[in-house]
């Protein structure tokens, strides 16, 4: 039976990985992920998990080493943030192409420049094309649950893809809050030992990380895309199993008071909880407001999106990153694109919020809803609250 404890979320994420009995951790520290790296190394040093900790000299080496270890059949975990994620970015598409189900914990942090160590999503957004499954956690409980779910989803023989679990840097990582930590038996029951599709071993004949000529590369890419698209079935299955065993429900897009909503906010990550309060306040004032919280970013939940926006007239999509010179925030542009062919679709506006750790309060969300209610902003996408 799980135990309700108070724990710093970064520590809890490492504890969750420990419950999954990882074999190898290859991690390089970077603020605000550092507590994850430190605690994973403590766990290994204390012998709490029968594992190796590879002290690499950079994030690029961290993911490269993680790939090497996963390729031998070892359940491997890594973690990073921001510049670290960008530094290892050349390895990300290779990990998914080689179908290695590594789990990466990302403490989302703004990307330089200027240098900023605080929370936003500009680190993970450039990675959305790399073929990884992406979960976004709203709170400490979800961080723990999603870490465990990530191993199960990624290692499923129908998936075989790496998974990243996104938690807001500082906002979640450095927050002590109540979390129900599952116990070892529960996790052992939920997550079986890793049986790899293929593993590098002197007794096994396999070449991994091969060359792909123009004659074969396109087929390989299609195969990877199909795997990622189809993985949503497994995600749903795993989330159903989770709910049955642990009693906590997960959906690709969680709705809050959208049954009769005319205008809805869309969030991803921990700001969603603050947004819930804004929705409550707006409702008290007679505004038919609702909220959509995206938990599964990749594969993109197209069917879920089309279902949950039915009847909504205006969507105020919040993004914590900007695709410079492009169509605005990534979440906004993907939602717009996803709904393009839907005949009855809401007006969609975009606010870029919480950049570089800028605090977003209940009043801000309420203001966004009130202004979005007109269905159009003065600009295609708005840097919310930016002076000038």
């Amino acid at each position: 039976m799980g135990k309700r404890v108070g724990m710093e979320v970064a520590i809890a994420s490492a504890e969750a990985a420990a419950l999954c009995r990882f074999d190898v951790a290859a991690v390089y520290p970077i603020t605000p992920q550092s507590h994850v790296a430190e605690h994973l190394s403590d766990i290994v040093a204390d012998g709490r998990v029968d594992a190796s900790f590879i002290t690499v000299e950079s994030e690029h080496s961290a993911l490269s080493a993680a790939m090497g270890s996963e390729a031998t059949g070892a359940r491997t975990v890594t973690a990073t943030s921001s510049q670290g994620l960008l530094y290892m970015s050349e390895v990300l598409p290779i990990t998914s192409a080689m179908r290695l189900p590594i789990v990466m914990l990302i403490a989302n942090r703004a990307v330089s420049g200027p240098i900023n160590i605080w929370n936003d999503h500009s680190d993970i957004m450039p990675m959305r094309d790399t073929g990884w499954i992406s979960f976004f956690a709203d709170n400490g409980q979800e961080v723990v649950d999603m870490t465990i779910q990530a191993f199960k989803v990624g290692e499923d023989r129908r998936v075989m893809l790496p998974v990243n679990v996104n938690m807001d840097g500082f906002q979640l990582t450095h927050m002590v809050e109540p979390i129900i930590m599952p116990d070892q038996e529960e996790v052992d029951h939920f997550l079986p030992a890793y049986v790899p599709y293929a593993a590098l071993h002197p007794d096994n004949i396999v070449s991994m990380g091969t060359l792909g000529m123009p004659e074969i590369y396109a087929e390989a890419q299609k195969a990877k895309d199909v795997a990622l698209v189809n993985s949503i079935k497994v995600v749903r299955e795993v989330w159903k199993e989770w709910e049955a065993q642990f009693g906590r429900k997960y959906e690709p897009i969680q709705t809050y008071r959208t049954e009769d909503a005319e205008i809805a906010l869309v969030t991803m990550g921990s700001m969603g909880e603050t947004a819930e309060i804004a929705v409550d306040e707006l409702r008290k004032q007679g505004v038919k407001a609702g909220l959509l919280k995206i938990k599964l970013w990749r594969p993109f939940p197209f069917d879920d999106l089309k279902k949950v926006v039915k009847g909504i007239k205006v969507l105020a999509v919040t993004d914590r990153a900007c695709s410079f010179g492009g169509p605005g925030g990534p979440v906004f542009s993907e939602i717009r694109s996803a709904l393009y062919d839907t005949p009855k679709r809401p007006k969609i506006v975009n606010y870029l919020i919480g950049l570089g750790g800028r605090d977003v309060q209940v009043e801000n969300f309420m203001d966004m809803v009130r202004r979005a209610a007109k269905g159009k902003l003065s600009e295609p996408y708005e840097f919310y609250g930016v002076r000038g």
Partner: protein
Amino acid sequence: MTEKKWPETWQEVNPGCMVFRPGSAKEYHTGSWRAKRPIWDNAKCIKCGVCYIYCPEGCVTENADGFFEANLDYCKGCGICAHECWPVAIKMVNEEE
């Protein structure tokens, strides 16, 4: 030379493009790239084995008499063996036809 069957359908590509057949590179006869081939003059050869060591393809082998020859299925004609041969026993000649 064994013909490679491609493009295979995307469904047939192994996950991760993994290759489970060992030594499949052997089927690729790079000898067809050759413009010149090495010819050994065994009268000059001192059987030192330097040509065998230096061949980047690893296709020079020692025969039953202790002399050396290149496997023409793989020899690309780079000329390194001829360049390194001390007694100048190897000559690079143009590929016929």
